[in-house]
């Protein structure tokens, strides 16, 4: 856009070449909002590059030619033009800009006026992205864009989010594509949210088709901050605060749990009872003289930090003149997790600039450096997780013995969380460089050639050290252990485009784009481990210092893609809009019979409000646009090498035993076979939408309806057994439909000195598997050897799967009465106090065939809404976010409502203990079948959250200006202050940990509640 402006300026320079007499104007520029002086307002003679800026008191003085037009412009305010015919004093009152209806959206390989956009594109401003104190942009998008579902996978600092644009398009990789300043990336966790200018999300196929085989899961376009023309800006931002857990499970205390385990006062001394009942003498590590009555440990308080720190510091310098601009920034983010020992630190450095070297040539670059360090902690695992231990260990266990040693559990095999934290030393460091350089060559005023070269280079280093120790038979390291690994990821990208932009005969606005891109990426991993370090000091945590059991491993991959693309944007008479996109992709991942794919889209729009017949409604409606589009796009995340038959060499499935002394002989054979037809997963999407701006642009509304059909989804399809394959080949055969409504609205108004905004968005989603191409149902999400989700035709992707319970057998009569239509008993082995399972098929047993779809893990409705107000320097923001209609598989109940082998929730005193005692909580001593995957674990996952609230004060710059500060704002902010949910686990935000296990809570790291204070300072 800037280039076009330059072009415009250059042309007008030629036209306006006559000079007449000169005038001098001077005055003060003030804000209409508070009458405060505006510093750095650009005051330009229209059509020239000559001008000035207002000083610290808002004053300016400018000498101009007769009858020149002078433009006063300032970011966030409406520009004003004045024709000057004489020397004069002119004070200017700039009105704040409410809604910039000529907002320009980044759309991929170009920009477009918002009013001309025909697809479903959402823009999220930098203010909204930085409002919530988070490390990543993905977190900041939560609740901000309709149809963009963002879920935390974990509350671990620095962890990535699950982002799904318009539903779940495939059982394979359904993550969106990221494009940062034109560079296509798989993740953007290196970016500092403070560096963001804006984010646009291409949701529908007509918008995303320009990204062809990579657009099917949506495209998130990120534009970083650039320097402004004729304005120098130094900005310092910081916040610091604390985080803590907001929720805690109500578990038994020592007395309750001891009573549950059968202790009564008749048993005499409690410590002796513990010692004998749990056979502690078997472990000599356990002192015999511990007084367990002295302890009533709340293990949740042990693993959750009271106050975990979070801080962010950001310093930026930017500026520019008519030929060049620059921006430099430094950032440091430091977050402790709310679970002990977890943390994340990130340094970011960023620089960009652009330079118009000649009238024909502009060059520029973006370079971003990132260093992040992360220490994780084990969560969300049924066997090894600090959270799991926290809800499981007996309250009478001390955390440490009086001599400081970490205790083993007296009751379970689970470890003391301190053992997992203090006797593990995992670390993970990433260094990443992402950047691009470009050149724009103006061949003709309306024809620009751009060449863009981008790269992404990441180096990761990780490892762990575990000392030698013994706590119990389940928790020990007979030898110390060290592992260390390095990985490298490299990507480069070349893009060449030609853009033609012209208005023909005043009525025909045409923008055409053609281009080619090439991208290549490769990955390399090398890692090893050893044991037996003679000295455990941290400066010896290197493989050379260890002596035994060396292992080494390495792997790698590469892929490449070559594309040709084209686009036509055509606007007739500012009323009728047409967008046509096409991209042709060839990928190294595709089979030889489908090496190239074409991805077209077409969209039409109609600005109703520009029609004659609409004029009498203009009083209410500023603009009304309806739009519709269709497109076919692809997902090329199909694995790198499915097109070829690979030899499986080594041991698994191919090694045999030979020899007098039996020994393994490695073998080699293909387990599956190449699919020469393998290709992208195709998504066809139809979209209809409407954009309305009304009431003097105070109210803007936008709505969309879409149907998104994924065809050709990759699924493993059985082939006849006589072919001889161990693993069925992947075939493009499955089909999934996502459909939904999306709606967003925003109202901005000013009453006196009060300026307020309210807005919100929601999206509905219906997700259904239409076909698995004849392949078998897909089972995923394992928990104690059972699969918790099943993907089957007619169900949503990854639907929960298990038995349906129907109350509890109260007595033997009820067991005998649970019969099929032939009168045969269905659960002959059951005892009173066991679950009655629903027999789905009228046979005489409960088995796999009685497991059914138990609910959809994906919300049918996602929403966010916000309100903000500014009054005399004060500002207040509220932001709510929520989901509705989803289920969560609460695996914690396996323990907290389990057999009592681990600590239980307090409510388990009400578990079944005799006829009529409970119909929901089975006898803890009952059949093991009670713990099987069943409807008992399924809970409503809906929630509404006050995601963020913020109160700020901006000092009057009449005062701060004297100190050289143009703006100073201080604020306090709270995140996740309120959560409304029926979910009984730690937190209702449960993303993915593996494939198709969305919404399975095995003790997910919960979201923190955060309180911060911050300031923003502009010089």
């Amino acid at each position, binding site marked *: 856009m800037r280039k076009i402006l330059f072009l415009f300026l250059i042309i007008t320079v030629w036209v306006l070449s006559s000079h007449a007499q000169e005038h001098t104007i001077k005055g003060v520029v003030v804000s209409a909002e508070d009458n405060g002086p505006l510093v750095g307002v650009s005051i330009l003679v229209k059509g020239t590059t000559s001008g000035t800026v207002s000083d610290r008191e808002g004053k300016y003085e400018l000498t101009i030619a007769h009858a020149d037009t002078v433009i006063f412009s300032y970011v966030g305010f409406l520009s004003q033009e004045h024709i000057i015919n004489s020397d004069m004093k002119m004070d200017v009152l700039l009105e704040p800009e409410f809604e910039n209806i000529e907002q320009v959206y980044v759309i991929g390989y170009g920009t477009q006026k918002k009013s001309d956009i025909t697809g479903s594109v959402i823009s999220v401003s930098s203010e909204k992205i930085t409002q919530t104190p988070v490390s990543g942009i993905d977190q900041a998008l939560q609740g901000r864009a309709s149809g963009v579902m963002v879920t935390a996978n974990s509350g671990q600092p620095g962890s990535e989010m699950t982002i799904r644009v318009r539903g779940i398009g495939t059982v394979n990789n359904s993550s969106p594509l990221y494009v940062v300043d034109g560079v296509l990336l798989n993740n953007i966790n290196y970016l500092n949210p403070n560096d963001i200018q804006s984010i646009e999300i291409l949701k529908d196929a007509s918008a995303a088709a320009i990204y062809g085989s990579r657009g099917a899961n949506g495209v998130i376009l990120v534009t970083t901050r650039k320097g402004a023309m004729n304005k120098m800006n130094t900005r310092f931002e910081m916040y610091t605060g604390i985080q803590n857990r907001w929720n805690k499970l109500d578990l038994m205390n020592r007395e309750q749990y001891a009573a549950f385990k059968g202790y009564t006062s008749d048993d005499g001394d409690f410590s002796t009872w513990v010692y004998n009942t749990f056979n502690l003498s078997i472990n000599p590590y356990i002192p015999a003289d511990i007084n367990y009555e002295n302890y009533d440990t709340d293990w949740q308080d042990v693993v959750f930090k009271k106050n975990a720190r979070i801080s962010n510091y950001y310093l930026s310098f930017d500026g520019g003149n008519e030929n060049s601009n620059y921006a430099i920034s430094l950032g440091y983010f430091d977050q402790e997790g709310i679970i002990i020992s977890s943390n994340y630190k990130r340094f970011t450095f960023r620089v960009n600039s652009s330079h118009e070297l000649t009238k024909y040539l502009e060059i520029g670059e973006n370079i971003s450096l990132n260093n992040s360090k992360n220490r994780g902690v084990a969560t969300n695992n049924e066997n090894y997780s600090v959270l799991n231990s926290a809800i499981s260990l007996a309250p009478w266990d001390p955390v440490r013995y009086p001599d400081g040693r970490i205790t083993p559990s007296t009751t379970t095999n689970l470890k003391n969380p301190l053992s997992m934290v203090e006797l593990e030393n995992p670390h993970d460091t990433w260094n990443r460089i992402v950047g691009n350089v470009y050149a724009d060559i103006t061949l003709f005023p309306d024809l620009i050639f751009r060449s863009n070269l981008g790269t992404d280079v990441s180096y990761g280093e990780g490892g762990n050290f575990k000392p030698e120790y013994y706590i119990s038979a389940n928790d020990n390291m007979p030898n110390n252990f060290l592992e260390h690994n390095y990985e490298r990821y490299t990507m480069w990208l070349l893009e060449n485009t030609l853009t033609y932009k012209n208005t023909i005969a005043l009525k025909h606005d045409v923008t055409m784009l053609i281009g080619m891109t*090439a991208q290549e990426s490769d990955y390399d991993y090398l890692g090893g481990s050893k044991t037996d370090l003679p000295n455990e000091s941290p400066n010896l945590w290197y493989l050379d210092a260890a002596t035994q059991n060396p292992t080494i491993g390495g792997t790698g991959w590469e892929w490449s893609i070559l594309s040709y693309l084209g686009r036509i944007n055509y606007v007739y008479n500012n009323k009728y809009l047409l967008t046509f996109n096409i991209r042709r992709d060839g990928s190294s991942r595709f089979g030889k019979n489908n090496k190239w794919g074409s991805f077209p889209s077409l969209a039409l729009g109609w600005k109703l409000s520009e029609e004659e017949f609409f004029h009498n409604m203009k009083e209410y409606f500023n603009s009304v646009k309806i739009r519709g589009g269709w497109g076919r796009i692809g997902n090329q995340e199909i694995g790198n090498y499915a097109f070829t038959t690979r030899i499986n060499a080594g041991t698994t499935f191919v090694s045999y035993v030979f020899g007098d002394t039996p020994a393994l002989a*490695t073998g080699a054979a293909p387990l599956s076979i190449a699919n020469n037809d393998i290709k992208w997963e195709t998504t066809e999407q139809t979209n209809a939408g409407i954009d309305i701006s009304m009431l003097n642009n105070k109210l803007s509304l936008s709505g969309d309806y879409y149907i998104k059909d994924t065809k050709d989804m990759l699924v493993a399809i059985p082939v006849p057994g006589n072919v001889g394959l161990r693993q069925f080949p992947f075939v493009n055969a499955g089909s999934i439909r996502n459909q939904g409504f999306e709606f967003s609205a925003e109202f901005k108004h000013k009453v006196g000195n009060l300026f307020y905004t309210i807005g919100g968005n929601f999206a509905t989603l219906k997700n259904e598997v239409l076909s698995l191409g004849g392949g078998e149902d897909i089972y995923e999400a394992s928990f104690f050897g059972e699969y918790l989700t099943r993907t089957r035709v007619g169900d949503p992707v990854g639907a929960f799967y298990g038995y349906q319970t129907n109350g509890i057998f109260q007595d033997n009569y009820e067991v005998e009465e649970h019969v099929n239509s032939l009168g045969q008993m269905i659960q002959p082995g059951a005892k009173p106090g066991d679950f009655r399972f629903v027999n789905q098929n009228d046979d005489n047993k409960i088995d796999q065939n009685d497991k059914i779809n138990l609910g959809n893990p994906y919300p049918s409705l996602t929403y966010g809404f916000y309100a903000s107000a500014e009054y005399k320097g004060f500002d207040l923001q509220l932001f709510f976010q929520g989901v509705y209609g989803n289920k969560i598989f609460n695996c914690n109940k396996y323990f907290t409502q389990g057999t009592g082998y681990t600590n239980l929730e307090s409510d388990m005193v009400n578990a079944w203990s005799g006829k009529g005692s409970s119909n929901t909580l089975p006898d803890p001593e009952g059949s093991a079948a009670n713990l099987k995957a069943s409807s008992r674990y399924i809970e409503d996952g809906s929630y509404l959250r006050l995601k963020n609230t913020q109160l700020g004060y901006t000092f009057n710059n009449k005062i701060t200006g004297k100190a050289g500060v143009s703006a100073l704002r201080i604020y306090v902010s709270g995140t996740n202050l309120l959560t409304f949910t029926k979910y009984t686990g730690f937190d209702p935000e449960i993303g993915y940990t593996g494939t198709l296990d969305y919404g399975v809570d095995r003790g997910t790291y919960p979201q923190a509640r955060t309180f911060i204070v911050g300031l923003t300072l502009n010089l």
Partner: protein
Amino acid sequence: MNKMEKKYLLIIASLVVITSCSEDFLNKEPLVDTVIENFYKTGNDAVLAVNAAYVPLEWEFNHTYFNEWMLGDVVSDDALKGGNNINDMNDLFLLENFTATPSNEVLLEFYRAQYQGIYRCNLAINKIPEIQPDETMDISLKNRLVAEAKFLRAYYYFRLVRVFGGIPKITLTLDPSEYKQPRALRDTIYSLIYNDLESAIPGLWLKSLYADEDLGRATKGAAQALLMKAYLYNQEWTKAKAWGDSVILSGEYDLEPGFSSNFSLAGENGTESVFEVQYMEEPTSDYGDGNGYTRGTFIIIMQRTRVGSLGWGFNRPTVDLLNEFESGDPRRNATITGPDGDLYLGNGYHSRKYALEGYTLAHPTRGPLNQKVIRFSDVLLMYAEAACEINDLPAAKAALERVRLRARNNNPSVLPAFPYGSYTDNQEDLRDAIRHERRVELAMEGHRFFDLVRWGIAEQVMNAYRENESVAITDYMMPFETGKHDLFPIPETEINLNNLLLQNPNY
């Protein structure tokens, strides 16, 4: 050049830049894994390919494919399924009672496993001849490797044909357009088996020529013995006897002095072993899936009694089998133990041969102990059978006596030489005596059902057995129907995937 021309040149140049990129850029061969086009190039590749062809022999039990002992013993009058109750591996229960349908998973998994073996053999047989001998493979090794694959292919087909009858004949790797293949005639499959084995014999080495670390590979004797068995299944007595002569006269094999040492770790790959499937201790803690169900076998834990939580109590010897043993036959107690408190439909007997009693498994469920496919006593009894059928009674009696001699274990009071008991010295009684000997000598080793079918006496024997079984068992058991139950149904799933497959009669 004026300005305008320069600009046009630039436009042309930029168009050239936009459109020029080589498609070579899109060729990315896999890193780490070898692609099939680059494999089968060296002697080492050939060795690896043939090693992998043995692996499906090891696959057994639930979801890890099934071994044919389940069919050979459980379906016959020798054994009951066993296990915890009738629902414990219910598919096997249905087979035992002749109520199995084409949806039976045991049969599906068995069918698929054999073809996975055949696929690997086909790759080896078709690719190795093109590999030039090198430092890892001399010409003798090359010929042997191809011959091993041919032996294995013949064996996989033999396993299929005696269970299902004629099945698709696959000797090349298939293109997707060729995936659906019709059933070949039973005789076509046997011709393939004969051809593969006859052409394998010259290339295979004598067992004694293998190095210690290569024991377990197919040998010349194994191919000859399998060929003998294949001919026996087709009543080609002369040919069977001729190949039996080759094995017996090779001097490579003899009976172990002690019958039971065949089923000990010490006796593995011993003098009596003609071919056996190799297993070893499994070092992992999973159910074998981590290693692709290689290394260890489930057979030990499956056959051990549930009493004392030693095992899972499958494959229970019947009283009918117990009574088949002559009084004082030491093989009876070497084969059957019990009864104990672990009852299955009233039956408390357990199979001993593969229980490896007294041995502590390193893995919770999987252990070592090779599975015997052909023992030398099997060869002798097959030889006796063939000789008897062509009325060479002295040769038949000599072979039979050799087996009984070892079994009698120097105790002159038991197991007298033929003719003994009610037998008189004629061909018919000798035939009966050989069949009796086969049943007790090879009991619980997976032979019985297939022997009954090939002798044509399955209906008579099975229904007589059913008459004598306890009601608890016969409540579930259907009569054997000739023309139906002598073959098992083709798996329904396979028919759905390949509509050229026709079902066996009466299923």
